[in-house]
């Protein structure tokens, strides 16, 4: 290992480090401000100046590469005075009074009233007080007298956007927010801008973040060293009492997050690794999540759901907090004792096939396991399923498993990929952090090939877009394989672009281009999403993906919508038999064979629920139609209140511990299943913790997987009555049986196109529909009204809509959850 001499001490450092990193590796502090470990160093603030023998002047440690034998001094009188000067200059445009005020301590004690001010005028009313890097720096640099008086910018505080406020009067122009947005997230929402004679950071043309397509990922807020950018929600919470490392429960990326805790409540969320520790801030104890193999895979990132959608979900005022039983037509709060006694009396009558369980793929593995065990062993019913795929087709678990066993690739492999194929997925919405990795790979030169019926946003960013008829993916992929086989170009990677020619190439051309790309750019990673698993041709497409991945020696990442699809599969909370799958269960309810239904975080939008003799709902929230029919409501503790395991799309089991005590009278899902089993007199349910359940689950043989019967390729063929193929995007903000957009203020703004229907320009002309008209889409199952939008990105007879299933769209009544396509006719609504 090379060595460097730091302040007269010779110490080793990891090759490739900067002088700053070499110092940190050896526990030597150098003051920094513009540096952040997840960002490229730019040497902008000049606080990290050092003296290096043989180098003139005072180089910045963050940008100077460490070299073997280098002699560096980090703390000399000259450096100290230089740093004081640099910091004074930086602070001269900052309301610094409190920073250098000698009555600071007394003031904090008395002036309790001034904290929640509209505008921050000093630390005492700043949301960052106690966790601010400037406060640490002033101490570190030893600044006690300011030579300059404050020149306050007097800019209005920006409060109109959701989730976070921006007060650029506090900004010290370190550029961290700009770099994270441009270089890491690759969204490019933020930039240095010029306003009059002032250089500031912000959005181009001073637009609001909503107007410039900000993803509200919160990364800029996380890296900001000052109070300039701050969460609305936790603005006045101050320094958390403690933090807890956990796993995001929303999508299958499985980002590691730090929950900020105060008074037994979650008051804030930060992605692991994003926030630099400062004097006042506690860093998360590393051991809470067991998957501490190296840096968190989200690398300091999250998305709007994980970053801004957890506190409100956990502490939502409308969360179900107590068990409820229907009495005299109304749901009445009751005790666990009474609820369990009621069910212990009712349930035995439904042992066998008249009982069914539908489990959410958002459940922890432990909960899914305990629930399915309850259904199978105590209730003696095989009617157990979870919406992991389109329910009408046979189980595809086997194919998913085969890909996982043979081709599983870590998320980070995207960064080394030279080519990426995305099939049937919209990761920017569904798996935002994976989308960031794709953008980063592209920036590093990887080729992107997108298979999608519509020219989605991702397709527009792609090198090659392969438009495909819904359901015909398998045929297209086979065509691609043949083209690959024909490609004879030797494996010399070329750098020329293979953009789709203007005006769109014939299919053959695009396939040939894609084949050329793939042949010349390896390694390759293939990602597939719900457009594959939830299409009618899921089986064929998964087969084709398996073949293609084999040809290319590519890694495969499945973009499952829910956080624990793989874990729920592993836990056996899915049907073994086609008759007992989701569709079979729904049919059983409709024809009266199934009389008792246990819904654990899952909610089919079915009128038939009213036919049930016993409906048990176990969840965080009660949707109105369930509230109408449920006989018993069991309040489930949220992920923040339980320990458990989520298996992310890499197949990695991520264990997490409870961060706060259960809200109200809620209990972990697995606990409820076990308590029910015991109430029914069953043995084998004496778990005292989730770890007990995990141990049992881990020792199990994988439950048998159903046969993936092969079916004829079943691309939907338009029929005369229903000439349009409608692609349905389910609200990516769905969680268990409700949608975050319904519970979290501001979330709906990120999802503006809900209840909108996109039509090709050609079809619109034919139907005489103009932008913004109301249209009615009618499927054999029902109809729904949408706002029409014209799109140049759709071929004729293909339409696209984003819907919120929690609102029980009429198109879904009688349709099965997860359906991605249906045939419809579209009419203009004339009123």
């Amino acid at each position, binding site marked *: 290992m090379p060595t460097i001499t730091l302040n007269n001490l010779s110490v080793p450092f990891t090759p490739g480090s900067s002088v700053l990193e070499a110092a940190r590796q050896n526990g030597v502090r150098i003051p920094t401000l513009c540096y952040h470990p997840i960002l490229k160093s730019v040497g902008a603030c000049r606080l990290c100046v050092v003296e290096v023998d043989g180098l003139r002047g005072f180089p910045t440690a963050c940008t100077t590469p460490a070299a073997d034998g280098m002699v560096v001094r980090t703390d000399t009188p000259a450096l100290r005075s230089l740093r004081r000067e640099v910091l004074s200059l930086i602070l001269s445009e900052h309301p610094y009074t409190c920073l250098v005020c000698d009555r600071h301590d007394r003031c904090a004690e008395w002036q*309790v009233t001034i904290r929640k*001010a*509209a*505008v921050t005028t000093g630390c005492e009313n700043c949301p960052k007080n106690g966790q601010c890097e400037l406060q640490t720096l002033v101490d570190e640099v030893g600044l006690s007298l300011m030579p300059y*008086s404050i020149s306050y910018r007097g800019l209005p505080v920006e409060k109109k956007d959701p989730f976070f406020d921006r007060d650029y009067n506090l900004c010290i122009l370190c550029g961290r927010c700009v770099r994270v947005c441009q270089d890491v997230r690759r969204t490019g929402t933020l930039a240095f801008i010029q306003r009059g004679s002032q250089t500031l950071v912000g959005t181009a043309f001073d637009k609001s973040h909503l107007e410039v397509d900000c993803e509200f990922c919160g990364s800029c807020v996380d890296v900001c060293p000052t109070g300039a950018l701050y969460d609305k929600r936790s603005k006045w919470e101050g320094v958390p009492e403690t933090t807890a490392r956990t796993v995001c429960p929303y999508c299958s990326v499985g980002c590691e997050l730090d929950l900020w805790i105060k008074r037994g409540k979650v008051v804030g969320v930060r992605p692991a690794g994003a926030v630099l520790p400062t004097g006042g801030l506690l860093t998360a104890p590393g051991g809470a999540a067991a998957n501490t193999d190296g840096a968190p895979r989200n690398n300091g990132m999250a998305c709007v759901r994980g970053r801004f959608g957890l506190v409100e979900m956990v502490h939502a005022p409308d969360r179900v907090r107590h068990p409820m039983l229907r009495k005299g037509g109304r749901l009445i709060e009751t005790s666990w004792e009474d609820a369990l006694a009621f069910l212990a009396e009712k349930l035995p009558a439904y042992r066998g096939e008249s009982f069914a369980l539908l489990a959410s793929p958002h459940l922890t593995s432990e909960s899914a396991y305990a629930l399915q065990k309850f259904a199978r062993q105590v209730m003696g019913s095989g009617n157990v399923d979870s919406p992991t795929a389109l329910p009408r087709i046979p189980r595809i678990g086997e194919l998913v498993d085969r890909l996982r066993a043979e081709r599983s690739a870590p998320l980070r492999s995207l960064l080394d990929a030279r080519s990426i194929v995305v099939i049937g997925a919209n990761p920017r919405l569904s798996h935002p952090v994976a989308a960031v990795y794709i953008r980063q790979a592209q920036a590093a030169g990887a080729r992107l090939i997108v298979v999608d019926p519509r020219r989605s946003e991702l397709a527009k960013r792609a090198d090659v877009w392969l438009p495909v008829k819904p359901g015909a993916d398998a045929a297209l992929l086979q065509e691609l394989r043949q083209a690959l086989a024909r490609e004879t170009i030797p494996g010399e990677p070329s750098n020329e672009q293979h953009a789709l020619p203007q005006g769109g190439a014939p299919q053959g051309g695009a396939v040939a281009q894609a084949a050329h790309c793939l042949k010349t750019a390896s390694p390759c990673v293939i990602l597939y999403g719900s457009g594959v698993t939830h299409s009618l041709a899921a089986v064929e497409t998964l087969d084709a993906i398996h073949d293609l991945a084999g040809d290319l020696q590519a890694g495969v990442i499945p973009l499952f919508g829910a956080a624990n699809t793989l874990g729920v599969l592993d836990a056996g909370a899915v049907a073994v038999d086609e008759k007992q799958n989701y569709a079979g269960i729904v049919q059983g309810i409709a024809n009266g064979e199934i009389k008792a239904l246990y819904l654990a975080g899952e909610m089919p939008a079915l009128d038939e629920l009213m036919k049930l003799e016993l409906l048990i709902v176990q969840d965080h929230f009660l949707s109105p139609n369930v509230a109408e029919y449920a006989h018993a409501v069991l309040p489930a503790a949220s992920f923040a209140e339980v320990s458990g395991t989520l298996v992310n799309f890499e197949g990695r089991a991520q264990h997490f511990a409870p961060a706060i005590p259960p809200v109200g009278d809620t209990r972990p899902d697995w606990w409820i299943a076990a308590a029910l089993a015991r109430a029914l007199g069953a043995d084998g349910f004496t778990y005292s913790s989730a770890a007990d359940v995990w141990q049992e689950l881990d020792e199990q043989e994988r439950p048998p997987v159903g046969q993936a019967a092969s079916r004829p390729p079943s691309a939907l063929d338009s029929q005369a009555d229903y000439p349009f193929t409608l692609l349905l995007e389910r609200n990516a903000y769905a969680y268990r049986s409700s949608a975050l957009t319904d519970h979290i203020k501001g979330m709906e703004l990120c999802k503006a196109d809900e209840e909108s229907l996109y039509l090709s320009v050609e079809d619109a002309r034919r139907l005489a529909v103009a932008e913004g008209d109301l249209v009615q889409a009618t499927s054999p199952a029902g109809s729904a009204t949408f706002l029409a939008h014209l799109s140049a990105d759709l071929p004729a007879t293909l339409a696209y809509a984003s819907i919120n299933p929690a609102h029980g769209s009429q198109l879904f009544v009688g349709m099965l959850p997860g359906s991605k396509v249906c045939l419809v006719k579209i009419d203009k609504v004339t009123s």
Partner: protein
Amino acid sequence: METHECKTTTAGHPAGVEILEQRMLVPNVNVLTVRAPAIARKIQPGQFIILRADERAERMPLTVSDWDREAGTVSCVFMQVGTSTQKLGVLEPGDRLPTFVGPLGHPLEMANFGTVVLTSGCYGIGALYPAARRLRELGNHVIGMVEARSNFLLYWVEKYRSVCNEVIISTFDGSKPGKKGEGPVHLSDLLATGRKIDRIIGVGCTFMMYETARSTRNSGVKTIVSLNPIMIDGTGMCGACRVVVGGETKFACVDGPDFDAHQIDWELLLSRRKPYMEAEAVSIENW
């Protein structure tokens, strides 16, 4: 005490009081001007009004900072701290306040005392201005002491200069035109010069008034402070504004808001504010 419900429900006009001007003077300090002729006719220095920003907002007392008896307008300087004041801060000219009641509270005692020092900070700079104007009219030698954390938080300095004989500006950080340090420190210095001062009046945050009381305690000069603790209904019914003065329980809204600074039980007063602030933290999140 006089209370005048000022309900302008003249036919054709919506109920409530119309906002004529809303301006942020310096960060967090706004001046709000409304049309309220009945109040403008009667108001005296030191009196306050109670308003609500909207139908759902809580009642909030604000000291009146300026008025124009002829034009029938009343202005209040207020700090945007907490939910209610931030709700008030976003209202615009033309908006209407459902409640605007006053004048309330006892006026400050106004006479020719001789030399009077007025010491103020935050919203108090505005709140004490009418007293400065009136005391000067009555022939006093008026010394206005204005404090702010930093110069960018100073306002109405020119207005003070126009009615005071002397103006002493202090900024905690010494930024110009201020003298470095807190107002009460400069007040101590002033008293230490042996100059004859006949009365001291202080308005500002509780902490600043507490410090004022401390620095004048030994001088024997009568010191009046205006208490701004939590007042909710302005009639003494709710008891939220209880203070102990000279061993007796008083209600700031009815008996005050001005009290002899040396008689106030400060420890009690300051300790009572905390629980309220915790509740406020929750209410602003849910706003």
